[in-house]
C-alpha cells in the first residue's frame, strides 16, 4: 500500500509545522518542565529599591511561565534573617523556599531547615551551565541544598577620569596599584588614592591581601598554617598605603563599607575594593557611561590574584508544595531570571548561558566580573574563622595602621590567634 499525500495536505502540514516552530521560538526560555500550581512562599533579604525591582521583574517572568502558581515573597532584614528563620524552623510556620547566603548553609542544614535537592539538581537540564565549584558552598556531606541564583564577585572600582587625567594605566598588580594610589593622592584637591576599609568589615580584605602574598591560612589537615614572612610582607604592603604613602583618608580605622563607598562616590578616593553588589549604588552617583569610573579585576599579588566569588542560593524549606517550590527555586537559576535581576541590581548571573547574553557582553562593567568568574577564588572556610577575623585580624591590623605594632609583630599575633581560634581557645 503506497503512502500518498496531496499537495493541499502537504501545504497544510507545512503550515502547522511552521506555526509550531514560530510558537516554539517565541516561547519563553523559562518554559515550565512540569505543570505546577498553588502558592509558594519565599523568604529573602532583598531590601533596597533596586533589589525589589529585580525581584519584581523575576516574579513577573515566573508568573508568565507558571500562570497557575503564585509567589508570596517576604523580605527580612539580613541581620535578623537567621533569627527569624530559626524561629520558623523550630516553632513551625516555615516558608516553602528561601534565599541562602553561602556562609549560612551549614547552620540552615544543621537545624533541618533545608531540603536535599541533590536528585533534582542532578536531573536538572540547567545543571551543566554552572561550574561544579558554584555548588560547593551549598553542598554538605555530598548533598546539595541550593541552586545558585547570582554571584557576588570581588572586583575593584577606579576613577577612570582621574587616571586618564594623570596618564596612569589601570593597575593589574598590587605594586602598580600602590604606585597609582600615590599618584592619585592630591591633598590640595582633597583626593586620596585608595579607600581602605580599616573599620568594620575590613578584616576580610586584610586576609585577602595575605592570601595574595601567598600565605595559606590552614593546611590540608585543618591546622593553622600562616606563613609569617609572607604575612609580614602583606601587612607591610597594605598598611604602608596609609602609614607611608598617606594615600588613604586619615579616618581609615573608622571607615567601614558606607564610608569607603561614599568617599568614592563623592570624589574623595580614586580606587575602591568591593564586589559586584555595589555597582548599582556607584552608578547612581558616577553614571553608567563608563566616563567617570570603571570596574576591573582585583590586582594580582606577588603570589596570586585573589578575587573571591560567593554565590547566593535559593533552596526549598518545606515540602508541602514541593513541585511549585522547585519550579521557583530552579527558575532563579535560569538565564532570563538572572539577567532580569542583574539589569535592576547589577548582581552577576551564575548561569554561564547568561554570560553569553549581549546584555552582559556589551556591558563593559561586567567584563571584569566575568573574567573573574573563570579564575575566581573562594574564601577558605574553617572552624573559628569568623572569630579570628573579627577579634584578631581587624584590631591587630588597626594597630599596625596606628603605628602601635610593626607588621612583623602583627603577623606573629595573627598566627597565634589563628592557632587559638582553630583550637577553640580564642578569648
Amino acid at each position, binding site marked *: 500500500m503506497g503512502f500518498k499525500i496531496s499537495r493541499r495536505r502537504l501545504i497544510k502540514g507545512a503550515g502547522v509545522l511552521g506555526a509550531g516552530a514560530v510558537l516554539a521560538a517565541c516561547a519563553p526560555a523559562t518554559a515550565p518542565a512540569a505543570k505546577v500550581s498553588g502558592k509558594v512562599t519565599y523568604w529573602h533579604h532583598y531590601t533596597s529599591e533596586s533589589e525589589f525591582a529585580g525581584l519584581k521583574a523575576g516574579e513577573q517572568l515566573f508568573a508568565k511561565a507558571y500562570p497557575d502558581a503564585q509567589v508570596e515573597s517576604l523580605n527580612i532584614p539580613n541581620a535578623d534573617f537567621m533569627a527569624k528563620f530559626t524561629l520558623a524552623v523550630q516553632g513551625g*510556620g516555615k516558608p516553602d523556599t528561601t534565599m541562602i547566603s553561602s556562609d549560612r548553609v551549614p547552620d540552615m542544614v544543621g537545624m533541618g531547615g533545608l531540603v536535599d535537592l541533590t536528585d533534582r539538581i542532578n536531573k536538572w537540564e540547567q545543571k551543566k551551565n554552572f561550574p561544579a565549584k558554584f555548588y560547593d558552598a551549598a553542598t554538605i556531606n555530598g548533598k546539595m541544598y541550593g541552586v545558585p541564583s547570582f554571584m557576588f564577585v570581588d572586583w575593584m572600582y577606579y576613577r577612570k577620569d582621574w587616571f586618564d587625567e594623570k596618564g596612569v594605566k589601570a593597575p593589574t598588580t598590587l605594586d602598580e596599584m600602590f604606585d597609582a594610589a600615590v599618584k592619585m593622592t592630591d591633598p590640595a584637591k582633597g583626593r586620596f588614592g585608595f579607600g581602605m576599609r580599616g573599620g568594620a568589615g575590613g578584616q576580610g580584605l586584610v586576609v585577602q591581601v595575605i592570601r595574595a602574598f601567598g600565605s595559606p591560612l590552614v593546611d590540608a589537615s585543618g591546622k593553622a598554617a600562616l606563613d609569617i614572612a609572607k604575612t609580614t610582607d602583606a601587612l607591610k604592603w597594605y598598611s604602608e598605603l596609609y602609614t607611608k604613602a598617606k594615600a588613604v583618608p586619615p579616618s581609615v580605622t573608622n571607615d567601614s563599607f558606607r564610608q569607603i563607598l561614599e568617599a568614592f562616590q563623592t570624589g574623595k578616593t580614586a580606587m575602591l575594593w568591593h564586589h559586584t553588589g555595589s555597582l548599582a549604588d556607584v552608578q547612581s552617583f558616577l553614571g553608567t557611561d563608563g566616563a567617570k569610573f570603571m570596574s576591573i579585576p582585583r590586582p594580582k599579588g606577588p603570589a596570586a590574584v585573589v578575587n573571591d566569588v560567593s554565590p547566593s542560593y535559593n533552596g526549598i524549606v518545606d515540602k508541602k508544595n514541593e513541585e511549585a517550590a522547585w519550579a521557583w527555586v530552579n527558575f532563579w537559576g535560569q538565564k532570563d531570571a538572572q539577567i532580569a535581576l542583574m539589569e535592576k541590581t547589577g548582581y552577576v548571573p551564575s548561569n554561564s548561558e547568561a554570560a553569553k547574553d549581549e546584555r552582559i557582553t556589551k556591558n563593559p562593567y561586567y567584563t571584569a566580573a566575568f573574567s573573574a568568574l573563570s579564575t575566581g577564588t573562594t574564601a577558605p572556610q574553617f572552624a573559628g574563622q569568623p572569630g579570628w577575623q573579627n577579634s584578631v585580624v581587624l584590631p591587630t591590623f588597626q594597630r599596625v595602621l596606628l603605628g602601635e605594632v610593626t607588621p612583623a609583630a602583627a603577623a606573629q599575633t595573627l598566627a597565634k590567634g589563628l592557632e587559638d581560634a582553630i583550637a577553640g581557645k580564642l578569648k
Partner: protein
Amino acid sequence: MSFTSIRSSQKATQRLFDAIAYAIVAFMLVFALGPLVWTAFTSIKPEKDIVTNEMQYIPLHPTLEHYVTLWNRAGVVTMFRNSAFTTAVTVVLCLLVGTFAAYSISRYRFRGRGGLLTFYLIIRMFPVVLMLLPLYIMLRSIGLLDTVWGLALTYTTFSMPVSLLMLKGFFDAVPADLEDAARIDGCTRFGALFRVVIPLARSGIAATSVLIAVGAWNEFLFALMLTNSDGSRTWPVVLQLMVGEFQLPWGLIAAGGMTSILPIIVFFAFAQKSLVRGLMVGAVKG
C-alpha cells in the same frame, strides 16, 4: 560702695547667670532638636545633595520625592495602619486591665500581693529574645501568629507590668479618705473608682498611656518575628527594611523617620499637659 553700685553689680551678676542659663538651655535644645532638624532637612534633600563632598546644611533644592517614594512603596499604608491599630489596642488593653489591677493592688491587702507585683517585675527581667520561641509557638497554636491582634496581645503582655506599677503609684497618691467619703455618700466601690480615683489620677493615666503608646509604636523585634506577611507587619519593620545591604537611601530613611515620629508628636501635643503633670506627680510623691 554705694547702694546703687551694689544694686547694679547684683543686676550684672544676675544678667551673667541668666546668660549662662540661657546658653546652657540653648545648647541642650540644639543637642536635643539638632538630630530632628537634621533628619527633617535630609528628608527634603535630593539624594545627590545628601551624600556630598562638602556638607550642605540647608536644603538648597527642597523636594518631596522621598515622601512620594515612601508613599508609593508597596504595603506602606497598610503597615502604618497596622501600627496605629496595634498601638491603640495595646493602650486600651493595658489601661483597662492595668487600672483595675493597679487599683486592687493599691487599695486591697491580700495574700500574695507582694508576690504578684514581683511576678510582674520578673516578666520584665527576662530578655525578650528568650521569650520569642514560646510566644511564637503559643500564638501559632491559638491562630494569632501573623495577626495584628497577636502583636497587640504581645505588646500588652510586656507593657502591662510597667503600666501596672506606674498606675499603682498614681492611685497610691490619691488619698483613700476621698474614696471613703464618696462611699459614705452612697458610691459603690466601682462608683468611687470611676467618679473619684480615676478623675484625680487622670494625669498619671495619660502619662502611662503615652509611654505605652510610644513603646508599642516603636517596637521592632516582635513586629518582625511574629508576623509573616505585609498584611500584619508594622511601621518599624518598614523603616528597618529601608536599610539595604549595599545601598543606604538616606533621604528615604529620613522621610520614613519623620513620618514615624509625626503621630507621636501629635499625641504628645494633645497629652502634653497631662503627661507633664502626671510625671511630676510621680516625681514628688513620697
